[in-house]
């Protein structure tokens, strides 16, 4: 019977303890009756030993594999063989690999990383470059409208009339008074929610024991009602929202 990717996944799942009892029974029945399936299981075991030794398995997968297949005499032999083979391959690398230049080495290192990591790294590089370009090109706001807002927890009312601002300036400088009960944070994150329920997060540009301030470009504040919340951010990146909120309206 022809084997497919799903069979490979099933076999891998069987060896890593990810199948249900019924699925395990099905695999074992196939192992006893299908030569191709049995052979693929043998290949998969070798490949998992290889991945285990290269520490490429997830923690829980590695632990399962250790407690099961690797604990058997066959598993121990497989591991010993894979270890010897790995050492042999390193010691007898093909000449093409030994004569690699630094650039080829870097390319090989790049290629050796998992897909996800490579995509993440590429996205990060693009984001950094885009950020640098944006910062160097975006004009800094020249003039500001200012608004100082009290926290609803301080005023003990969420029904307080929101402050209104008519934005003709380049940006709005918001000063948010912190409630007396707020625990000071290392940094502050400010979330601005518009009346479509869309949230934009900002890092506070200034802060002291009583308030945090930030500047929001006017382009990001079309007319409408806004709700603002403030959270403290600790050194370990724990985010703790400060009770209460702030409201304002842009006309």
């Amino acid at each position, binding site marked *: 019977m022809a*084997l497919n990717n799903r069979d490979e996944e099933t076999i891998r799942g*069987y*060896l890593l303890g990810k199948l249900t009892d019924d699925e395990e*029974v099905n695999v*074992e*029945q196939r*192992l*006893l*009756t299908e030569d191709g399936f*049995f*052979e*693929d*299981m*043998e*290949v998969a*075991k*070798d*490949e998992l030993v290889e991945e285990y030794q*290269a520490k*490429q398995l997830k923690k829980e997968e590695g632990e399962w594999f*250790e*407690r*099961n*297949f*690797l*604990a*058997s*005499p*066959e*598993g*121990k*032999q497989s591991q*010993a*063989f894979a*270890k*010897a*083979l*790995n*050492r*042999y*391959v390193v010691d*007898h*690398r*093909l000449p093409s*690999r030994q004569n690699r230049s630094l650039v080829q080495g870097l390319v*090989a290192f790049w*290629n*050796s*990383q*998992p*897909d996800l990591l*490579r995509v993440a790294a590429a996205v990060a590089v693009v984001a950094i470059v885009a950020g640098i370009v944006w910062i160097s090109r975006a004009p800094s706001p020249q003039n500001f409208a200012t608004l100082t807002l009290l926290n609803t927890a301080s005023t003990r009312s969420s029904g307080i009339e929101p402050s209104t601002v008519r934005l003709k300036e380049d940006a709005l400088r918001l000063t948010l008074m912190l409630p007396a009960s707020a625990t000071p944070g290392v940094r502050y994150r400010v979330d601005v929610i518009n009346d479509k329920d869309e949230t934009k997060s900002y890092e506070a540009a200034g802060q002291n024991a009583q308030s945090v301030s930030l500047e929001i470009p006017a382009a990001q504040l079309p007319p409408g009602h806004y709700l603002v919340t403030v959270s403290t951010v600790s050194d370990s990146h724990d985010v703790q929202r400060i009770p209460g909120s702030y409201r304002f309206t842009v006309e």
Partner: protein
Amino acid sequence: MNKEPPTEEAFNKLLAWLDSDREKAAERYEKIRLRLIRIFACHGCVEPEELADQTIDRVMLKIGWLLENYVGEPTLFFCGVARNVIKEDLRRRLSQTVPSPKEEPVEDDADQKEYDCLDQCMQKLPENNRHLVLTYYEEEGHAKIVRRGKLAQELGITLRALRLRTYHIRLQLRACMESCLRQNQAR
């Protein structure tokens, strides 16, 4: 188990149940035994061969009933019995303290002997197979996967065929290495 071991008559009946041709039946018996051993190993059983024999013994004890009543593929019946044996073995192991493989001491000397034997065995391989193994294990991580894909293309075979080809070479190498280690031990 306190039950009597199966008789020779039961063994003959078992073979007859597996295939009417005794030679084919014997082959089938060996195949089932080997695969049961592998299944038990996957479950971390410390004595998979003994458990495979225990499974076959249990089937043989029921052979009279099976011949009269069982309809279907005989190997599937072995599978059902093996599941029970696995569960019993797991219960037994859980009630004992089994040292984790991590806790075992690292044997540098044993590693070196294995390496030396493998080195000898690699030299006995035909040059194309030796080259294939070295190329197959070149690179690391994602680059290894890419390399293997290219290698399969170069050889004009599917990736699965390449995996099987290298698996058979590894089997050959393992058998050679184990025989070399046994010989060294006997000296």
